[in-house]
């Protein structure tokens, strides 16, 4: 992250600063420029040992920032020892011999003894070395390191500010032994690095830390100023104010009031920053949750502006319409609509914006959508108007209802068919019965009149009626079976099946004078459902026989089968009566008899043919011939694939 990176840079800068200052000071001490020391004594406030210690600390800081663990910790041990010894010299008035260990100073500036560092400098070295050793070993920041960094920073910052405002006590804890401004600057840099680098890991708010840091430094400075003031008062026996409250109590009140104000400010800052952080987290979470809901919604969710341009579309839209989100964003929503909506949509929106008259907004209805591939499909659309900070957007929820509509249509069709079936069966089942009842009445009269030849004929008519009824019932049973029967696919020997079906017709009188030829190749097989296939072939053949032309000199029926464009085609052609052009649209419909005076048919034959073919995934077709008919059923051919037989055909 950028921020972390910039703090890492602060770390590197602090280490570089320490090393640079340390090396420069060491060089100065070794060069012993007496002239420079006379002209600019302030330059020599930092002692040689301290300079060396800063170089070591700077190196350790850089190393630990690069992830080295042991070496920085080891380096910090002598620094800590040096700091501890230097401090104890001041505390116990001893001489540990460390002041001039490596270099004997050619000049004494800002110190009580040659080469001795100030107690605050010594303390800072202890703090810094301890903190850096901890950081190197743990490789992360914690409260202890931050506290150590705090103490270092406050001490050094007070000294530095002391130089700026000439408050001697800030850097001179013991008279004439002061923390040099070089040291102070280095400690400030290290303190900042210690406090801020890595604080995000323990989730401290940096601004708050900085505020607390400023507050404490400020309070310490005030305290020191107070102390300094009282020292001067004691030393010179004067009071700075003769009337009213004395300067010290004024200062104390100032310290108290400003400190309280500052403190309150910091606390407020801390809490408000924490609240802001919590709110940001809540917001991010709720936004994330909302986003997840929209992204995972089954329905498409689109938002558009008041001119119809798409602002957003969720992944479901991609699934429904086929466009990638980037292809939809910024384009007019009419891209998802077929004509006439496509052209009219701008008008709808304009109309609504002007008149407020809603056709779809806030209502929802079934419309049509257009996919990327151009296909048009039914969809449910619900649009809501959303007012956002003065701008109006519309959110639409779309659901592809192709499947539902297809089911609905199929259901309506099936229902209509069922109704038609009920209507026709009620008529056609009763028809032979009503006729027979009439014939029965007539028979009784003929019997009483003793007209036996006429009676015989009438009974024959009754027999015909019952045959018709039986035939109709058989057909109804076939239809029911075709609908309900579950059957597995099996390989069917077509030629054998056709021969069988021809044999089954041989009992009909008409069959004897019709030439029926089976041209199906012997090796041809199809994988299909045998019983349904049987119904189909039997039906086609009996139809051809039933509607042969009695006047035809050589009535003939030819059965052929071949593979064509990945499909199996079985055709039965005859030179019979054919189908009058006016009636062809009724072919394959339920209860349609097309030939007058040939009422033997139930009107269900071709309907059964079509239904059976459809049950096998195929279709029944009719082709007129010059004389007669050709009925074809076309079935999917599992054995062969389209491209094998007719490459390039789709």
């Amino acid at each position, binding site marked *: 992250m950028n921020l972390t990176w910039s703090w890492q840079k602060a770390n590197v800068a602090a280490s570089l600063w320490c090393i640079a200052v340390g090396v420069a000071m060491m060089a100065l001490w070794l060069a012993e420029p007496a002239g420079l020391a006379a002209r600019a004594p302030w330059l020599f406030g930092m002692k040689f040992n301290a300079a060396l210690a800063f170089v070591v600390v700077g190196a350790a800081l850089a190393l630990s920032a690069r992830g080295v663990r042991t070496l920085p910790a080891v380096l910090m041990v002598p620094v800590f020892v040096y700091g501890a010894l230097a401090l104890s010299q001041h505390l116990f008035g001893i001489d540990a011999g460390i002041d001039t260990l490596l270099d004997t100073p050619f000049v004494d500036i800002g110190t009580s003894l040659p080469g001795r560092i100030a107690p605050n400098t010594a303390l800072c070295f202890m703090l810094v070395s301890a903190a850096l050793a901890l950081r190197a070993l743990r490789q992360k920041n914690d409260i202890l390191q931050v506290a150590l960094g705090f103490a270092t920073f406050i001490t050094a910052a007070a000294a530095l500010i002391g130089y700026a405002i000439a408050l001697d006590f800030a850097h001179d804890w013991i008279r004439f032994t002061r923390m040099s401004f070089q040291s102070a600057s280095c400690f400030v840099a290290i303190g900042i690095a210690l406090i801020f680098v890595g604080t995000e890991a323990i989730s401290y708010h940096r601004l708050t830390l900085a505020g607390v840091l400023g507050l404490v430094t400020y309070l310490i400075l005030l305290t020191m100023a107070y102390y300094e003031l009282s020292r001067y008062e004691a030393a010179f026996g004067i009071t700075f104010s003769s009337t009213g409250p004395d300067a010290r109590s004024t200062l104390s009140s100032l310290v108290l009031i400003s400190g309280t104000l500052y403190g309150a400010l910091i606390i407020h800052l801390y809490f408000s920053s924490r609240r802001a952080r919590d709110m940001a987290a809540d917001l991010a979470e709720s936004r994330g949750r909302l986003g997840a809901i929209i992204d995972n919604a089954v329905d498409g969710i689109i938002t558009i502006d008041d001119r119809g341009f798409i602002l957003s579309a969720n992944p479901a839209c991609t699934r429904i319409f086929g466009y990638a989100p980037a292809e939809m964003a910024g384009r007019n929503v009419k891209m998802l609509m077929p004509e006439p909506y496509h052209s009219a949509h701008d008008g709808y929106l304009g109309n609504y914006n002007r008149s407020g008259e809603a056709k779809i907004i806030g209502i929802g209805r079934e419309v049509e959508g257009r996919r990327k591939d151009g296909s048009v499909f039914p969809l449910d659309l619900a649009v809501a108007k959303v007012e956002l900070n003065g701008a109006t957007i519309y959110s639409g929820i779309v659901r592809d209802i192709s499947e539902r509509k297809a089911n609905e249509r199929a259901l309506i069709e099936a229902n209509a068919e069922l109704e038609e079936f009920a*209507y*026709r069966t*009620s*008529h*056609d089942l*009763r*028809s032979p019965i*009503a*006729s027979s*009842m*009439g*014939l029965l*009445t*007539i028979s009784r*009269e003929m019997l009483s009149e003793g007209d036996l030849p006429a009676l015989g004929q*009438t009974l024959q*008519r009754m027999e*015909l*009626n019952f045959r018709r009824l039986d035939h109709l019932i058989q057909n109804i049973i076939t239809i029911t079976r075709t609908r309900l029967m579950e059957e597995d696919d099996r390989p069917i020997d077509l030629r054998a099946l056709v021969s069988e079906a021809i044999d089954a017709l041989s009992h009909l009188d008409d069959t004897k004078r019709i030439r029926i030829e089976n041209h199906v190749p012997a090796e041809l097989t199809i994988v299909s459902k045998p019983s349904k296939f049987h119904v189909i072939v039997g039906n086609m053949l009996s139809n051809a026989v039933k509607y042969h032309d009695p006047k035809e000199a050589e009535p003939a029926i030819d059965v052929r089968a071949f593979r064509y464009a990945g499909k199996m085609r079985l055709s039965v052609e005859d030179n019979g009566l054919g189908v*009058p052009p006016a*009636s062809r649209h009724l072919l394959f419909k339920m*209860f*349609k*008899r*097309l*030939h*007058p*005076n040939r*009422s033997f048919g139930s009107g269900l034959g071709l309907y059964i043919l079509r239904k059976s073919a459809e049950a096998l995934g195929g279709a029944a077709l009719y082709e007129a011939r010059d004389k007669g008919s050709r009925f074809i059923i076309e079935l999917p051919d599992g054995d062969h694939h389209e491209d094998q037989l007719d490459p390039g055909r789709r």
Partner: protein
Amino acid sequence: MKINSILVVDDDENDQFICEYTIRKFDPSILILKAFDGSEALDILHRETPNAIILDINMPVMNGFEFLDRYAQEFEVHAPVVAMLTSSHLGKDRERAMQYSFVKSYFEKPLQADHLRVMADLLRG
């Protein structure tokens, strides 16, 4: 006025036979015209106008309703009594048939002497 001629429109041979027998029994002097579907009936009606028509509904080529439409449109003079004769008594079919001004009765098969008596009464006014 008594019935002189009746046109029977029915595709079923047996029903034609029953109608013919029943009409003969009712009044042997009535002339019986036969048509096996609506278009045959129209051909006959172009030539002559019988006193009554007995009309089936379910027929191939041109069914009873199609016939009624054509008969209403193409003819100015209609047979005084047109009676529907059908094998099932469905309210929907009856309503539809009775919308034609010239359809006077709606009978269920088989045709009986009583039906002819009703037709004769209708003709007499």
